[in-house]
């Protein structure tokens, strides 16, 4: 068993070396891996970058923030993606914030509830508060909507709101921000969570701990569900990685990210 493991590890090591070896000649392939929240935006940036630099191939892979950090530390990928804060022991990594995002709790426009606390949010999504009356609203059973397992928005929401708690079993599960918004827009009893930038006039965002989600409260991190999207490198980035990181902060890229609903940093 152990020798097997050792053999596999050696294999991985040699593959990693192979990648490292390739890297120094004129590199044409860039590998980006990590957070699934950042993944769609990295894919968008990769597409734009490839249009400007034909011949460059960019692979964007998921796996989660932690996997992204490990991958970049082990030089398995060129750039890691991360949607959470870095732990203190992850200090050998250079992080660049490419955009900010907030997760907003949304309800139907007719819902009189304006503000809830983080604890109440947790109680709603874990099924302990089941009626809007308990929150000062009308006598309606709450329709809870969450995202599918594996979604980055769900992972962030779990981390920041749910903690160790589980989602209520009768919570509806939808596989996109848009689907959640659609249900909330039509169901007076619904509550869901979506990316801040995708709020539109058909739904009403709730204040959390009395702080309304806005560009300002997300930027200064007073809004409790603000998160930052990071690109990570470990050691000296390759010229291609450097060029891609510079592109991510360029006005064109930032504009594209803002159009997708994120808050630009530049």
């Amino acid at each position, binding site marked *: 068993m152990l020798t097997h493991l050792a053999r596999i590890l050696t294999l991985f090591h040699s593959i990693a070396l192979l990648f490292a070896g390739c890297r120094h000649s004129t590199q044409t392939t860039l590998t980006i891996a990590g957070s699934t929240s950042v993944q769609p935006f990295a894919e968008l940036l990769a597409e734009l970058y490839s249009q400007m630099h034909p011949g460059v191939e960019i692979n964007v892979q998921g796996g989660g923030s932690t996997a992204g950090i490990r991958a970049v530390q082990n030089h398995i990928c060129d750039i890691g993606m991360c949607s959470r804060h870095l732990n203190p022991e992850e200090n050998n990594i250079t992080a660049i914030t490419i955009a900010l995002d907030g997760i907003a709790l949304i309800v139907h426009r007719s819902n009189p509830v304006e503000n809830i606390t983080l604890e109440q949010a947790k109680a709603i999504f874990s099924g302990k508060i089941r009626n809007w009356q308990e929150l000062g609203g009308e006598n309606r059973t709450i329709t809870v909507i969450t995202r599918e397992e*594996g979604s980055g928005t769900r992972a962030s929401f779990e981390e920041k709101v749910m903690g160790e708690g589980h989602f209520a*079993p009768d919570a509806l599960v939808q596989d996109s921000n848009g689907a959640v918004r659609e249900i909330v827009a039509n169901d007076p009893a619904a509550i869901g969570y979506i990316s801040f930038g995708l709020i539109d006039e058909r739904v009403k965002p709730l204040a959390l701990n009395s702080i309304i989600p806005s560009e300002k409260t997300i930027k200064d991190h007073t809004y409790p569900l603000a998160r930052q999207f990071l690109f990570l490198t470990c050691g000296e980035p390759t010229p291609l990685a450097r060029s891609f990181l510079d592109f991510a902060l360029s006005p064109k890229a930032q504009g594209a990210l803002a159009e997708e609903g994120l808050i630009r940093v530049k």
Partner: protein
Amino acid sequence: MKERLIEKGLLIVALSALGSLLLIAVFIFAEGMPLIVKTGFKEFIASTRWAPTKGSFGILPMIIGSLQVTLLSLILGGSLGLACTMFLAEFAPRWAVRILKPLIELLAGIPSVVYGFIGVVVLVPWIRNTFGGPGFSILAASIILGIMILPTVIAISLDALNTVPLTYKEGSLALGATRWQTLYRLLFPAARSGIIASLILAMGRAIGETMAVIMVAGNALLISASPLAPVRTLTSNIALEMGYAAGDHQRALFATGVVLFIIIAILNTIALLTMRKKR
């Protein structure tokens, strides 16, 4: 010589169809079985907790959800379809059949996402406002699926009824039986195998349908006897979480496919056996 060549050629083509089935089966099992073995088959199908990114792989809610939705849609679509078949076979004037039959067959050509969309826009709010609850429910999925299986039920059972020799019917009517008695006591039993076949095919369609069900079933990991409760089916589970699944999570989705495969095989076997017994 030419005859043999064509025979062999057809054999190869036929085998390639079978081969692709085999390949799919092998692939699904190869990807899914390791996780089932790791989790334990019993745990995998009997545990109610599904949190694949946290190492819990229990698909019981989805198994029950699939069966509930399939059964209710067969009850709704099957009874409506058979009533429609009876009408078209015996009571409808010929011009009406000529218009209705192609129209019903047209139902089969509508993409499932359109059914799902109509479900979300019309059916779900109607259920929410009429019966309460979130609207996304077993009932909504079953009604949509019931409509989707209509063309299968009607086309095949109508063909079966039409293949019953005309002399049976003439004999029965000549003996003084009414049209309804003839249909119910004679034609239906005579066409039974074809009618059961139509229901089996409809069941396969219902249990395998994904897109429309994802849109209206609510996808909650809930076990509930209420038709107004939201559920997740096995197929929805795979399609819903496919996007970002990696590692064990992805294998768990293939394992869901393995269970679906086994369930369909069991249901088809039961259906075939009952068909044979009653003949």
